[in-house]
């Protein structure tokens, strides 16, 4: 599973992209966030304010209860500030 990070989520995790093997218990985006937080202190810090983080599965906005299914790419980022 390719995981991508943007803006301050990227800075806190310390990378813009990583490939992670998901345990079978990870079914939803919320499960994935729970899993990522256990990886190291950087991930834990990045996801400390879970409410401030938005998610896209295969480049589509989703809520954290979304199933991961056969997604290729999941991205985490703060609320958008373009325009």
């Amino acid at each position: 599973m390719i995981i991508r990070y943007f803006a301050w989520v990227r800075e806190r995790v310390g990378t813009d992209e990583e490939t992670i093997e998901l345990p079978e218990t990870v079914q939803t985006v919320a499960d994935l966030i729970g899993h990522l937080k256990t990886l190291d202190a950087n991930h834990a810090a990045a996801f400390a304010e879970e409410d401030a983080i938005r998610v896209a599965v295969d480049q589509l906005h989703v809520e954290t209860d979304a199933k991961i299914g056969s997604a290729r790419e999941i991205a985490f980022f703060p609320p958008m500030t373009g325009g």
Partner: protein
Amino acid sequence: MPVQPTIRVQKDDFDALAESKSLTEGRQDVGAVVTFTGLCRDEAGTLSALELEHYPGMAEAELSRIATEAVARWPLTGLSVIHRYGKIKPGENIVLVVASSAHRRAAFEAADFLMDFLKTRAPFWKKEHPVSGRASVWVEAKAADDTDAARWKNT
């Protein structure tokens, strides 16, 4: 059939007049063109530049989804959306929306709608680089942007 919107995500500046002209030239069915240009602002004089980060691929895809909804919702004759990324200095352009239609109400509403949803849904993030040696900071999303986007649900 709804028109095919033009979507571009680019580092370079854009030419608002050229984009507007491309929606009107050689045709006689356009009565109204509304352009919105968003610029990098620095009233306090403390900003060296904004840095616009984006999610390549998803930025274009999301802008296309918003634009497709706009052309389905209003009888537009043309719609173009250009969003820049990279370093942008105060006074420079950030984003352009051009909506054209037979009638002004559709052009105004579509451009307004586009900007509201672009702000809350298009994956771009602004970082402010101050003129002094202080650390750069990520711009925080505004609650007002969500309120603006919510306006379109009841119409």
